[in-house]
């Protein structure tokens, strides 16, 4: 799923055919969360929205909108597709990353703070691409606000295992960040 290779218009136009009502409900209900998961991985909202479009399109092509596994499928696909995109896009320049950062998270007149934060964000993305896929997906899902039960459904693991798996993922993340 190469999100970066997809070029789509930024907005819609009147006259585009209707989608099944169930799918529109699913899209409206899950879009923000799918983008959020992808953005945790990619650190770039535009790229995360491209990934979300691809994830919904993959689902739309192959699954009914009322499938009971729809939401967990989308969550897992968002994490994995974003990780694929992260690995595929290569290393971004610091300047691009700094531009992608929300302005309200940094003091605009503190170049040193910007440099440190940029370096950290670069490293975070490098580490996410390097640690085991499932660990990275776990972190993306958990820190996007999914519950243990939702993570268990998305990653097809037992809910009772999520805490342990998450701790291992966090340990792996910490080790690589050192």
């Amino acid at each position, binding site marked *: *799923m190469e999100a970066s290779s997809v070029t*789509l*218009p*930024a*907005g*819609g*136009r009147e006259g*585009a*055919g*209707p*989608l*099944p009502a169930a*799918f*529109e409900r699913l*899209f*409206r209900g899950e*879009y*923000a969360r799918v*983008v*959020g998961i992808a*953005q945790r991985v990619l650190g770039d*909202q535009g790229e995360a*929205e491209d990934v*979300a*479009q691809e994830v*919904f*399109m*993959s689902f*739309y*092509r*192959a*699954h*009914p909108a009322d*499938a009971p596994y729809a939401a967990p499928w989308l969550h*897992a*696909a968002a994490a*994995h597709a974003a990780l*694929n995109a992260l*690995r595929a896009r290569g290393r971004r320049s610091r300047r691009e990353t700094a531009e992608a*950062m*929300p302005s*309200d*998270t940094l003091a605009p007149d503190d170049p040193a703070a910007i440099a440190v934060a940029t370096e950290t*964000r670069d490293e*975070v993305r490098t580490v996410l691409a390097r640690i*085991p*896929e*499932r660990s990275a*997906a776990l*972190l*993306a899902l958990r*820190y996007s606000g999914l519950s243990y039960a939702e993570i268990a459904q998305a*990653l*097809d*693991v*037992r809910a009772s295992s999520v805490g342990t798996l998450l701790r291992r993922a*966090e340990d792996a*993340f*910490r080790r690589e*960040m050192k």
Partner: protein
Amino acid sequence: MNDNEIEKALATGDWGVDTESALARFRLRAERERVVPIVAAPRRRVATGWIRGLAAAAAVVVVAGALALSGAADTVLKIFEPKQVVGVPVTQSDVSYLGQACGGLSPQQCLGAYGTFAWTTPPQPKEVQTLSLAAGAAGFSVQTPSSLPSSVTGQPRYGVVNQSSATYTFSADATRQAAAKQSRTIPPLPANIDGARLFITGGPAVVQVWGAPANANPGELANIPTLVVGQAKAPVISSDGVTVAELQSYLLKQPGISPQLAAAIRAIVDPASTLPVPVPAELAISHPVTVQGVQGLFIGDNTGIASAVVWQKGGMIYEVIGSLTEAQALSVANSMR
């Protein structure tokens, strides 16, 4: 680094999404690409004709990697060694046209119409009891998934295909005779291809199978519906007189090659290092994916029943195939260690 610091590191700041604009964008694309939604819940974990076909495709890839070369002369040049895999959509019409072009012959018989194929060392699949025995028999380190979807249960069975070899010799006479026998017209074999030999090498291969019926032959992947993980040394083809470009050019002149299929074959930028994987166009979708840090190919059926991921890395071809979603197939593939 505590949990709060991890949270902070992964933070993306305040942002908002415009869901309605995104939905409009989606509608536009679905309309432009004429995407038809699935309305019936797909059956899961069912051994259908499609999964058997996909398993057969897996067998082709794995067995292709189980061919080996022996006794090549100094004049032999390596003409094919895959470094990547690509999907080539093949429509039912293509299959039908090709069948007609070969006068109803099977693919093997059709191959025989252009020359002679001979095993030097034929593949002999066998089952072994453990992964370490499989690795020992294959002579390489075998990767296995470190995590599996909960739908995949039980212990795997292991199959090993030995290193084997074959030679194919092109023959203008055989081509003429086969064409006359079938009352069909095909372009004459170019003089430089007549008599040229292909030495096909590859293998050994190891397959790990979950959900295999107890009485199933591990070499018959069609019996296996749940999960198959294949690993094979990438096939290498050498020749003493023909290049891949010449073979491609001759192949494209054959009757029954549709313009779409020809375009897909021509689009392979480097045919000497690209393994084309036929994808049934009406039944499956395929697109490139990043697997284990390299570009691979995802193949999935249109109903979400089955999927496969194929990739090449470090001289090996890997394949994960089963009743999996794309996310699950990629997760299994990326968990292989």
